[in-house]
């Protein structure tokens, strides 16, 4: 894992990728810092951190598009997968390298609050908390990018799809506002989920029997929940979509609150996508 981590980190700075990422990130954050802190003489640094989150939409694809896709295009994955490394080790090495570049960039932006502290008092611990949230949010986005990069051997496709996925998460809270919350639509959505899972099982295993059993069990569970607790399906779609709402968790950090649950949420979220990445690579070897 360490060898892959070191190689990836070097590769970021041997190619323009690392510099483009850092340069773009620092440019945007610098502009926002100048506009909302320096020119208005405001000590509220958290507002800068919260308004520059949109920069992830552009810089995360730059950071992650190459990670797995370039390996399969250049066939260097043959080297990694035939070496005595585990797939998990490879994926983690790459993930931490990308996170490391992000972390280094973030450390440079720490200059901004330090500059502010020369001119007045700043809420040090709120800013530290804000940084933790900002870092975890970025790390979660990077895990999505890494996952998408493992699905294709084309960097451009990886970048565009990652951008699309992040954009979806970006507007998710807005989408949730327009989703019906009544019981019937909740049940329909639950049934659609069951069908979706059964279809996924069918397309991966080509076993009609197993997927039929899964579908039956799934519908059974839906029916069981319905008879046990009808109210479960009220607003079911909204609650499901909210699982993916990375930004709403971020708001607690921006209010200066450092609580455990969003931290656990972000770490779990990243872990799930890293796990999926490992599965995708493993599965490609079997098909």
């Amino acid at each position, binding site marked *: 894992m360490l*060898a*892959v981590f070191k*190689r990836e980190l070097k590769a970021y700075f041997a*190619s323009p990728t690392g510099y483009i990422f850092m340069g773009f990130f620092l440019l945007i954050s610098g502009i926002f810092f100048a506009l909302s802190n320096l020119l208005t003489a405001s000590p509220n640094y958290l507002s800068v951190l919260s308004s520059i989150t949109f920069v992830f939409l552009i810089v995360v694809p730059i950071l992650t598009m190459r990670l797995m896709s370039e390996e399969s295009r250049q066939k260097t994955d*043959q080297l990694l997968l*035939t070496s*005595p490394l585990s797939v998990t080790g490879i994926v983690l090495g790459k993930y931490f390298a990308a996170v490391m570049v992000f972390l280094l960039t973030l450390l440079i932006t720490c200059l901004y609050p330090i500059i502010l502290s020369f001119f007045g008092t700043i809420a040090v611990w709120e800013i530290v908390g804000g940084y933790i949230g900002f870092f975890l949010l970025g790390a979660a986005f990077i895990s999505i990018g890494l996952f998408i990069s493992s699905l294709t051997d084309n960097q451009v496709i990886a970048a565009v799809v990652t951008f699309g996925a992040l954009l979806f998460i970006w507007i998710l809270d807005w989408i949730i506002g327009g989703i019906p919350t009544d019981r019937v639509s909740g049940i329909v959505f639950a049934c659609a989920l069951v069908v979706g899972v059964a279809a996924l099982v069918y397309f991966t295993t080509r076993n009609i029997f197993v997927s039929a059993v899964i579908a039956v069990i799934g519908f059974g569970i839906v029916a069981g929940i319905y008879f046990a607790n009808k109210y479960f399906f009220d607003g079911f779609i909204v609650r499901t979509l909210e699982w993916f709402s990375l930004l709403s968790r971020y708001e607690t950090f921006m209010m200066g609150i450092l609580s455990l649950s969003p931290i656990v949420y972000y770490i779990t979220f990243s872990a799930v996508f890293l796990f999926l990445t490992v599965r995708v690579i493993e599965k490609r070897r079997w098909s």
Partner: protein
Amino acid sequence: MIQVIDVTKRYGQHVAVDHVNFTVEKGEILGFLGPNGAGKTTTMNIITGYISATEGTVKVDGFDILEEPEEVKKRIGYMPEFPPLYMDMTVQEYLDFVSDIKKIDRATKKKSMEKIMDLVKIGHVRNRLIKNLSKGYKQRVGLAQALIGTPPVLILDEPTVGLDPKQIIEIRSLIKELGKEHTIILSSHILPEVSAICGRVIIINKGRIVASDTPENLSKRLSGTGRLSLRVAGPEKQVLKLIREIEGVKNAEAQGVKEPGTVDILVEAEKDIDVRRPLFYALSRAEYPILYMRSVDLTLEEIFLQVTTEEREVS
């Protein structure tokens, strides 16, 4: 050393490798021969653990690729058809990285890297970026990569493809040299290459093994009759007539005139009858000197065509 047990690989409906069985003994150089798309690369990818077999398994040094993949991978150096090189690294950085992922001891790493760079003669390009190297050098770096950690088993997929004749000869003699210490599987579709390097040949076609033997035995077994090629100074008709009268000669055919006043003849003899002495005496009595005479084995090309066409007729 290597046991391939009933390995099958299916891609949907397409069967790329179909119940392949073979073993490779320690110290053997095995040639893997077959037309493009026969399943050579797929089989090699399965042995090295890059892809998994649909059925069957591979054992290296007693370790099963499914149960203890890391033990197997530690023992194999793999050079795929396209060397897996990172273009943005220098040769030295790259080999250093490969040593790290193969978990080579830090103390011996430097020394073994020097040794390997000497062996494949890439020491003088060590500080150049891999993307700026020529095809031949990239191929050598690919081979160096496989040699790192001196694994007991080497698997080389078309190691000489795309090289110039001089480099091909160099790489071949290098592989022969390596064969003294390593067990090697080598794939190729160039027949003279395989017969020059390998102690045993497996011919694979459409995912199935169609022949497996030493190059000489394959040639003998399939040729059936003994064939001789000779050049005789004398008129074609009389010479042919003389030869056909000799006992044991099944057929004699003129092959044209390559030297003025002589004729080239291909003689087919009955199985297990040596007609060389009667030929010599008959022709010398008639005062038609034999300028040369040599036995003709089937070339690997002919064997190859023969077994692959036989296979086609069966299926």
